[in-house]
């Protein structure tokens, strides 16, 4: 307990003052004190610092109320106990109202010690409360200054989801008056088509306390246009873990959204066009091929050698074009799944599926396939199968005549990427073509040497791009080839 006490006594009776000093010292205070009797002396004494003021309620020129007002005017922060010979309830109430910490009847001076202790404690608590309030006010002012400096609409809501603050941007954008009830403000600005969904989504998030994120249109007061906005909000908890406030931002994403939609529309049309073209092209192609074959079957021998050769070339070319169109369709199909999230897939299952499909060529060539441990990762299984199918298929196709293919498949994690490796002992290729081979319809060999449309690696490359991954190859002629593809582990396709 702090025993030293600096006490300023406003009292015109020296006896009463000494009595006070006596009681305070008796109560255990190590007292420094001064007794003053009028305003002038009181003002003079205020140049020093006091822990407490004990003021007589009734003095001829300068009483306790006047002293309290003076302390207030001079912004001197010190607790005041009012002492009085007789005091009615009204006078006591007046003292407290003016800012006295307590009051005490003079015939109960024995209690002055405990009254002072109580006053000191109450004063300290009061000061702490005021300080906290000031900090809060300052922090709120800082928040509002910051909020108003931001280019976005910023708002807050109570834990029950009712809005209680919007920054200037909101009023500028919405054209609403500042005294509009924030409670219903959103409803008048959100595009009516979006309103129900937004309300339901917001109600869900308010119930769960989980972060809120939604895209919807807001009416711009300036030109009446509904513009797309992205709204995000997070709930902040107080110390006890209870939600105390939602903080939200609303950002204009209109231009970005429109260009996204235009891009999506154009991509969609392109896909439709590609499918239609590919499908409708197949039909006459098939007819040309079969008509050529019919010609050959029925009239073969009646032509001269050149004509037979030309006919053969005709049929052969249409068959090839048929395969090319099919492969182009497969290439287009890679991005079909755009919106589906990739499931967790065991790469070793995908590898088994690919090996099963390659069973014929693998057996015929006497291939040996060595597999390391493969991971489980987020990827569409058909994509994974296609990657293995094309890369291993190439290893078998581009094998050396003298030696059965030996194909090693492994995987490791490096720099947040899952890197797959397919190595063979085949004919390899010149490193200068390492990028070219991933192009659409790109081939390094003559068709009669190695058949194929040149789409296999292009499809692989497109699949890997879909996951924001990479594909590359290392080789030199005769030394076999190593193909790598890396899929980012954070994984979601852009």
């Amino acid at each position: 307990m702090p025993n030293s006490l600096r006490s300023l006594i406003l009292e015109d009776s020296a006896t009463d003052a000494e009595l006070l000093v006596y009681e305070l010292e008796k109560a255990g205070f190590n007292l420094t004190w001064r007794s003053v009797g009028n305003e002038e002396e009181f003002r003079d004494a205020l140049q020093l610092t006091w822990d407490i003021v004990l003021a007589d309620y009734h003095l001829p020129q300068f009483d306790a109320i006047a002293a309290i007002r003076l302390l207030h005017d001079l912004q001197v922060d010190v607790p005041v106990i009012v002492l009085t010979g007789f005091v009615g309830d009204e006078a006591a109430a007046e003292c407290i109202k003016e800012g006295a910490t307590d009051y005490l009847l003079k015939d109960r001076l024995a209690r002055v010690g405990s009254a002072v202790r109580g006053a000191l404690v109450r004063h300290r608590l009061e000061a702490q409360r005021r300080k906290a309030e000031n900090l809060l006010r300052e922090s709120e002012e800082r928040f509002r200054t910051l909020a108003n400096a931001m280019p976005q609409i910023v708002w807050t809501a109570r834990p029950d989801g009712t809005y209680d603050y919007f920054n200037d941007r909101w009023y500028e954008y919405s054209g609403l008056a500042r005294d509009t009830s924030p409670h219903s403000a959103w409803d008048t600005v959100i595009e009516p088509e979006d309103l129900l969904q937004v309300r339901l989504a917001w109600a869900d998030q308010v119930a769960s306390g989980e972060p809120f994120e939604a895209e919807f249109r807001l009416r711009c007061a300036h030109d009446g246009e509904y513009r797309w906005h992205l709204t995000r909000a997070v709930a902040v908890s107080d110390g006890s873990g209870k939600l105390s406030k939602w903080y939200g931002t609303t950002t204009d994403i209109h231009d970005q959204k429109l260009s996204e939609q235009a891009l999506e529309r154009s991509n969609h049309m392109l896909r439709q066009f590609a499918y239609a073209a590919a499908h409708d092209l197949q039909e006459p192609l098939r007819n040309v091929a079969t008509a050529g074959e019919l010609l050959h079957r029925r009239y073969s021998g009646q032509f001269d050698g050149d004509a037979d050769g030309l006919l053969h070339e005709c049929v052969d070319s249409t068959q090839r074009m048929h395969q090319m169109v099919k492969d182009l369709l497969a290439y287009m199909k890679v991005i079909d799944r755009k919106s589906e999230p990739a499931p967790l897939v065991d790469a070793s299952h995908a590898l088994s599926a690919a090996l099963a499909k390659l069973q014929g060529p693998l057996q015929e060539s006497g291939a040996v396939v060595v597999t390391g441990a493969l991971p489980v990762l987020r990827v569409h299984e058909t994509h994974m199968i296609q990657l293995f199918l094309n890369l291993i298929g190439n290893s078998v196709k581009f094998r050396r005549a003298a030696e059965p293919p030996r194909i090693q498949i492994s995987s490791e994690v490096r720099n947040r990427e899952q890197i797959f490796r397919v190595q063979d002992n085949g004919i390899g290729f010149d490193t200068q073509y390492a990028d070219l081979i991933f192009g659409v319809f790109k081939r390094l060999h003559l068709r009669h040497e190695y058949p194929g449309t040149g789409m296999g690696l292009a499809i692989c490359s497109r699949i890997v791009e879909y996951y924001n991954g990479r594909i590359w190859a290392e080789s030199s002629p005769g030394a076999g080839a190593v193909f790598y593809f890396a899929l980012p582990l954070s994984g979601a396709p852009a």
Partner: protein
Amino acid sequence: MSVESTGRVRVLIVEDNPADVMLIRMALKEHAFVCDLEIAQDGAQAIDRLCGLGGYSEPYEPDLILLDLNLPKRSGIEVLQAIRGRECLLHSRVVILSSSPEDVVEQSLRNSNLVADCYLTKPPSLDEFLKVGRLIRDCFESASAR
């Protein structure tokens, strides 16, 4: 029923591409599938023929319908819906013969709550196409044996 009475299978080919009609005829002939053939060149004509509408005085009840899907006027799906809606065609076998892959076709029919007896893709080579004749015969015979 009609097979017993005339001894010949009655077939309706719904196909707009004359080259394919010719190939189907050849393919059926190649596998000694003896039948009475009628051709409908678009979906609307097929529905009219089956229901005895338009210029046709009476409905047609073929034992086997070879149906392309991508057809002028009314699609193959609409034709199949019309077939499934006619009780007198309950015994008719329907083989879908289209240029799209079988699984794609089957799925798109299933999306319309439709099922065919058999799904075949028009192959790109003559030899393969001629084999389709045998597939059609097998499909028809196994379906009829059920």
